[in-house]
């Protein structure tokens, strides 16, 4: 405790006045020789004890009044927090660098700037206000959280300089991951007094669940650390409420044949409260505008547009959709890459060929992969299949193939197994369907090999749905696997219509595998495993209609085509990636040491070198911080790979969490909240220098005066 006007404390000596008056009054007693003593005795008998207490209370109140008044005038400051050593502190700023921070800043704070610029400006003041000897670190919290500096620095001028490079193009902020990163950064904090400030626009999409009570274990852990860091939620906001964005653009095929029409389904979202009429949406191929469509959007509504286009040249092509008229422009375009090939060779190994049409294990597959060829249509199929029985397979059959599909294969002979193993390791794709012929022992022992083999999972056994029980169906959920993304839209087909009577019970282990589809019995239907440079997908059912009616469903054709093209494009760049991720392309071993030139959408170039990690050789870029089409060209060759980067659609909804909810979260975790720089500075001053107590003291003084009057009245009334 210290005092801003310490000298006025002397005024507290005024407490002597009532005390002296009280004592003098007692000493200056007059003697009254009195007759009506019986009346006095009667009064006193009832109140003697109470009177003593009341007299004492009144005296204490009267003594307290000048003391509190003097304290109030002396402006005491509570400095208990100083004992935490807040003289110099370690500041960790969790800066939300997600895309939404690029929205225009509020007119009252930074006219013409963005929320991120405002955040930078405010952070600079925060850093300037830090006492000398303090250290700072910034955790960029959008997308995957990462440190701005390798180590916390005491050179506080370094931080703003580094911050100017932050483009704020990351994906949505994951609060738990961000606090986890802050906790880890806190370990390097050199000072005992530690402060964590989360600077964010507190987008509703990122924080709603937490405001509704979802746990935030990383923050709970952070707030329980000893010595306890001071945590502050600092909100930087935008006035912008209107925003249009391209939420997604689903492409019908990852790989297309020359002149094969490709469908592009574009979802446009209005995040604002006003309706939009005739918004122009352009389709661009390889940078050239092809056509324009117009859509109208209801408030907070959505519109879906479909485009088709056919490329007539083999190679990588870019396909972009762009909308016009929206002031927040960064999310107005969506880019993807389409690979156009002459053909894609697929080998179908039929484990149980049938004599009747469609009775063989791979018959439905053949039709699904080459529908035009089977129908003798004029349209050309990209995929060219070669069906072969297991016993007739030869080494040369595997050559020139990009994907091998095994359907109801009992087991592979040693040399065939080795050939397929090598094929996948070198980047080929393998799709394995189950079936009654499969030798489960062999599959588990040789093919799965306790996770070392090709097969993605051990098989517990064969499960079935009894005839009187309902069949198993595909569990409808948001699919995240690239081959399944297309089926998130109901228009791609009703996956839930497929009925499964028999299936393999997979028991996938660890993080080697990724589930593509699940059955509603909580078992996987399809799982994927990376193996060498290639990928293997295992399906728990047959490829024909023996165990399910899957092949009879209309979506079977696009599903098989997408799985096949997905397997065939291993080693190629994905159709698009989120800004904030890196480019990482596998290379041939021979390419180790070669250089690549990366050209960004603005024409800037940088050179990348291939690198080796274990057996894998690859080329990797730094984190990509802008959306658009990138070109990666091997130096000295014509070989160019196109890459598309898009902003996460979740960031386009600029709605912020209401202040009350942010405060609620802060309060729950014993954190402070500020939404203006002066408010933060006041908070900081209070922590650093203590809080002034004159206001509560003034209230106490008024209360004492009130009590004194009440007591006096009460005593006078007797």
């Amino acid at each position: 405790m210290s005092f801003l006007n310490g000298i006025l404390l002397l005024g507290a000596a005024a407490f002597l006045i009532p005390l002296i008056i009280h004592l003098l009054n007692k000493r200056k007693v007059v003697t009254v020789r009195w007759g009506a003593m019986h009346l006095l005795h009667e009064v006193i008998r009832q109140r003697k004890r109470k009177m003593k207490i009341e007299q004492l209370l009144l005296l204490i109140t009267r003594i307290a009044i000048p003391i509190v008044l003097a304290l109030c005038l002396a402006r005491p400051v509570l400095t208990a927090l100083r004992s935490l050593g807040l003289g110099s502190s370690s500041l960790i700023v969790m800066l939300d660098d997600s895309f939404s921070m690029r929205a225009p800043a509020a007119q009252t704070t930074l006219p013409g700037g963005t929320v991120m610029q405002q955040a930078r400006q405010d952070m600079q003041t925060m850093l300037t206000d830090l006492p000398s000897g303090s250290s700072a670190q910034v955790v960029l919290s959008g997308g995957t959280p990462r440190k701005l500096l390798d180590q916390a620095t005491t050179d506080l001028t370094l931080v703003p300089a580094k911050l100017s490079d932050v483009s704020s193009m990351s994906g949505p902020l994951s609060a738990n991951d961000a606090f986890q990163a802050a906790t880890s950064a806190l370990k390097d904090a050199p000072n005992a007094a530690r402060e964590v400030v989360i600077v964010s626009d507190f987008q509703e999409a990122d924080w709603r669940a937490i405001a509704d009570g979802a746990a935030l274990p990383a923050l709970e852990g952070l707030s329980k650390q000893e010595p306890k860091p001071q945590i502050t939620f600092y909100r930087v906001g935008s006035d912008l409420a209107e925003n249009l964005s391209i939420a997604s653009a689903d492409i019908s095929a990852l790989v297309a044949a020359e002149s094969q029409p490709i469908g592009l389904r574009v979802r446009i979202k209005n995040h604002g409260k006003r309706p939009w009429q005739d918004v122009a949406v352009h389709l661009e191929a390889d940078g050239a505008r092809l056509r324009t469509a117009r859509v109208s959007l209801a408030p907070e509504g959505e519109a879906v547009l479909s485009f088709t286009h056919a490329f007539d040249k083999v190679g990588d092509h870019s396909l972009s959709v762009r909308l016009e008229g929206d002031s927040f422009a960064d999310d107005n375009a969506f880019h993807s890459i389409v690979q156009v090939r002459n053909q894609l060779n697929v080998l179908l190994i039929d484990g149980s060929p049938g004599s009747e049409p469609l009775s063989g294990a791979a018959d439905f597959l053949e039709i699904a992969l080459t529908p035009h060829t089977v129908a003798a249509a004029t349209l050309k199929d990209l995929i060219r299949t070669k069906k072969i029985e297991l016993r007739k397979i030869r080494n040369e059959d595997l050559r020139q193939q990009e994907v091998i599909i095994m359907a109801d294969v009992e087991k592979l002979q040693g040399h065939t197994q080795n050939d397929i193993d090598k094929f996948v390791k070198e980047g080929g794709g393998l799709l394995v369907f189950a079936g009654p012929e499969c030798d489960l022992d062999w599959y588990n022992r040789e093919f799965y090999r306790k996770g070392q083999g090709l097969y993605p999972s051990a098989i517990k056994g064969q499960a079935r749905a009894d005839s009187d029980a309902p069949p198993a169906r595909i569990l409808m959920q948001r699919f995240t696997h690239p081959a399944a993304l297309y089926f998130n839209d109901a228009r791609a087909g009703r996956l839930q219509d497929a009925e499964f009577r028999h299936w393999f019970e997979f028991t996938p282990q660890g993080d080697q595998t990724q589930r593509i589809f699940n059955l509603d019995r909580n078992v996987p239907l399809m799982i994927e495993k990376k193996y060498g440079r290639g990928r293997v997908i295992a399906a728990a059912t047959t490829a024909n209609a023996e165990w399910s009616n899957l092949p009879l469903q209309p979506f079977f054709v696009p599903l098989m085509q997408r799985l096949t093209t997905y397997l065939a494009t291993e080693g190629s760049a994905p159709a698009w990636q989120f800004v904030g991720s890196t480019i990482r392309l596998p290379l041939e071993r021979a390419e180790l040491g070669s250089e690549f030139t990366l050209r960004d959408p603005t024409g800037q170039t940088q050179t990348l070198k291939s690198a080796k990690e274990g057996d894998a050789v690859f080329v990797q870029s730094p984190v990509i911080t802008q959306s658009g089409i990138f070109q990666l060209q091997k130096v000295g060759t014509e070989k160019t790979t196109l890459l598309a980067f898009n902003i996460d659609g979740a960031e386009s909804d600029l709605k912020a969490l209401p202040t009350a909810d942010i405060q609620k979260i802060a309060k729950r975790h014993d954190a402070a909240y500020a939404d203006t720089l002066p408010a933060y500075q006041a908070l900081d001053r209070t922590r650093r220098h203590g809080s002034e107590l004159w206001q509560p003291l003034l209230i106490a003084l008024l209360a004492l005066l009130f009590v004194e009057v009440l007591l006096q009245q009460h005593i006078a009334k007797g």
Partner: protein
Amino acid sequence: MATLSDILHAEDITSLQSLQLFARTVVEGFTTGQHASPHKGFSVEFRQHRPYVQGDEIRRLDWKIFGRTDRFYIREFDEETNLRATVVLDASGSMGYRGQKGILKFDYARKLAASLAYLLMSQQDAVGLITFDAKVRDIIPCRTKITHLHLLLETMVKTEPGKDTSLAPVLESLAQRLKRRGLVILISDFFDDPAALLRSIGVLRKKGHEIIALQLWDRDEIDFPFGNWARFENLENDDDFLLLDPATIRQRYIEAQQNFAEQLKDGFRKHQVDYLSLPTDESHSAALRSYLSLRMR
């Protein structure tokens, strides 16, 4: 020999005389029969003879003079006395309170008693006096003669407030002593146990006495105006004192005083005793006026 002027100032005497005149005017024809005498017949004190006129009562003719002179004369007597009034004056310690206005309660009581005695005697009533504190101190029997007044006044003058009060036993002993029924005028502050007091009043009333209770209050005892811390010492008991801040109990004291007065008033009313509460800062004439108005009811 004590005279009236020892007790009363000249203006008081003048005031009393005018009061007497006032009383005579107001109470014309009221005295006789107003004091409802419990005895039959008249007490007879001869004054003069006068010639008979028509209308005089035949039984009042003096036949001896008629025998001697052969003329009719009527025997005239002094006015009849049918009231025996005993003034009971409280001379206890509490009557020795001298208030902030400088009036001694007992002084006031003494003057009031003298005024009443004078008033009654000038109305040819027999007046007696009893002074007491814890016990009866002086008893002067009822007499009519004006010379008797001097004895009463002398007794009053020599009496000073004593110690403890014990009103109830005094009144009970009074009931034994007052053989003939009459008017008992109690002048006191009645600072005693109300229950015992009213019980003894009951005894007096049973004996057929008419009672007038005049309660004296100093203004301080009504308003309790003390400001500073004070040590209140009991006038009747030196060991009894209280040290307190009067301001803190004023309200409650006033309530207690009013309750006490009310309690007495109710008790007196129950026993059909006329009651007057007299603050000592009121003039005696006002007090007497109150008394007379009480008697006229």
